[in-house]
């Protein structure tokens, strides 16, 4: 399956929230929708889910207009939302029924998911009596109760301790592995980097960058290299000796030496210069920018 947002524009009154936004998600390859606060992530998600229509543009599933009455979408809202005063099982079943599955099916799915997320013991408790992390897990159960084909997770990891985060990561990995169409929205870059093959960065209502994360990283200038060595003294001596016009700069970091070249094609020069101490080298590799750096690069400047 392939979910596509094409040229979406939306404004509320005078305020343009989205301008010509396009991105796509495929089954089995999660998309990370990134953006600063107010960039338009939630509005994009609501348009995908047809909570309100876009002013122009369309949402397609496998080339046809997405019909939310035919395809189930599981949604984990950023502002968690369930009934605080109702027993957990009761509301899980209710959301299952609303999504269109039978009561029996809803009960079964709820049992399975509660068990998977290790919160079965709370099934008859009222939601507000649970810890924040456990409420979050219940919220995820509500998201997945109807076994949706499309899963939209808005900041799923916020407020989870490392153990619960790991549990949630495993569940998300299973979803991706089972060919679900997963869309992540987050500004926790490490999680996005871990799960998402594709990213789209929203900034002030526009997509400023989208595509496969690997390609995006490659597209950055590859003129910075990292050297790991058992003897940085010898390496530094070699690089400092003589005239080296191809060398733009170097910086000793904690356990690596970062070398910047004038031109990525000058890698050969560097290797030749390092040849005499090859025995002391552990690794020489191109240093790719982190998603964090990419994100900051594209979204710095005033935000709405």
């Amino acid at each position: 399956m392939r979910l596509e947002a094409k040229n979406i524009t939306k404004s509320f009154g005078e305020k343009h929230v989205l301008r010509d936004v396009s991105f796509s998600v495929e089954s089995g390859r999660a998309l990370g929708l990134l953006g600063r606060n107010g960039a338009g992530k939630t509005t994009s998600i609501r348009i995908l889910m047809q909570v309100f229509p876009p002013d122009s543009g369309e949402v397609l599933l496998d080339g046809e207009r997405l019909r939310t009455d035919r395809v189930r979408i599981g949604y984990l809202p950023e502002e968690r939302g369930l009934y605080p005063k109702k027993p957990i099982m009761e509301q899980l079943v209710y959301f299952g029924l609303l999504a269109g599955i039978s009561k029996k099916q809803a009960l079964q799915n709820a049992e399975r998911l509660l068990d998977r997320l290790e919160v079965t013991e709370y099934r008859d408790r009222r939601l507000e009596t649970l810890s924040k992390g456990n409420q979050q897990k219940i919220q995820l159960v509500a998201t997945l109760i109807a076994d949706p084909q499309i899963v939209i997770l808005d900041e799923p990891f916020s407020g989870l301790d490392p153990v619960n985060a790991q549990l949630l990561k495993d569940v998300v990995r299973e979803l991706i592995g089972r060919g679900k169409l997963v869309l992540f929205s987050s500004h926790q870059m490490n999680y996005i980097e871990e799960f998402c093959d594709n990213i789209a960065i929203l900034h002030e209502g526009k997509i400023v960058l989208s595509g496969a994360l690997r390609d995006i990283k490659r597209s950055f200038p590859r003129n910075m290299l990292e050297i790991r060595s058992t003897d940085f003294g010898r390496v530094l001596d070699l690089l400092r000796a003589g005239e080296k016009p191809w060398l733009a700069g170097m910086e000793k970091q904690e356990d690596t030496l970062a070398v910047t070249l004038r031109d990525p094609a000058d890698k050969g020069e560097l290797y030749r210069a390092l040849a005499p101490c090859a025995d002391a080298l552990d690794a020489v590799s191109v240093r790719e920018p982190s998603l964090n750096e990419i994100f900051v690069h594209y979204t710095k400047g005033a935000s709405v």
Partner: protein
Amino acid sequence: MKQFRHIFAFEYRSYAKNKAFVATTVILILIMAVVLCFPRFSSGDFLSGLMAGEARTLAVAGEDADSVAAFLQTVLPYDRVTTASADEAALHASVLSGEYDAVILLESPTQYQYITETASLTDTTSMTVSEALSARLQSIQLASYGLTDAQVASAMNAAVTAVPVTLGNDQSQTFFYTYILIFLLYMAVMIYGQFVAQSVAVEKSSRAMELLITSAKPVNLMFGKVLGAGAAGFTQLILLLGSAFLLYRVNADYWAGNATVASIFDMPLPILLYTILFFVLGFLLYAFLYGALASLASRLEDINTLVMPVTFLMIIAFMVSIFSMLGDVDSLLMRVASFVPFTSPMAMFTRICMGSVAPWEIVLSIVILVGCTVGIGYAAAAIYRVGVLMYGKPPKFGELIRAVKNDRAARRKR
């Protein structure tokens, strides 16, 4: 439709399981049981005793006080009538100290002072006394003209009586149940309408709305909520009125003699059916408004301010009907009010019970009301759809209309 059913059932159950709701129902039924069974366990005269209040002490002073006091005692059998000396200051003091509830100070055969601490609105004693003393005076004068006692008695007792022939409603029969039903309608709409408002605002403030609005259609949510609360309220009313009726039937013999109570429980079947119809329509109309307005509240505290206009509308409708019940129920104001959807549930109902209405008027009023209720239901869903996603300060009326218009325009384009 399936979705609507689930929402309806969920809402209905949340009332049925709500402890406060159930407790209120049970307590109200118990209170009613106590009231309706009371005559069974008390002396037969308890009602008249209840109406008459406590026995009072009256003092008669002045000229011929002894015989007047004896005469008044026969006229006011529930009160205690004594005599006192005609010292005005002393009498004032004993009234203020509470020794006497009232003093009748005879100044001349045709005038007396009626002295009480507070002049009560409902105290009819002075009227009774005036009538009795006037009759006594008339008898004495007639006797002085030389008439025999029998002639005097016959002259005094001569009276003309009217035989009532009522072609339409007898308001002495209909007044009480109409009053009670109008009041119940008012209370029910107010209370159950607030329930709807509350439940919408709770979902919004707990952000359960985020999930609801993405998994269900706003029209289904709105209608499910309103009808769920309505059905729960209706169940409560049926339980209350049903048990009142049963308790009355069981105790009917003990209530015999009381025309007011009997007129309430012997209301004709068509009136009962109209009651149900106007209850349902009136509730739906107002509940949709309550729901739509509550969807604009981000915090529970905001609901009260937001629903105020609707509450006022409700109070006006109530006042118009109640006050016209004491005067002319078919006045021009009432005739207009019985076609305006927000006032018609009460106004038309009052006129059906107590006035004279042509069948076409009833039909027209109901058609307008049904049309408006459905229209307002859909309008409420449109406001709700936009409102539930607006956080922060509730929007101004103009902003809201613009937002709804934009939303509808965008939707039509699809």
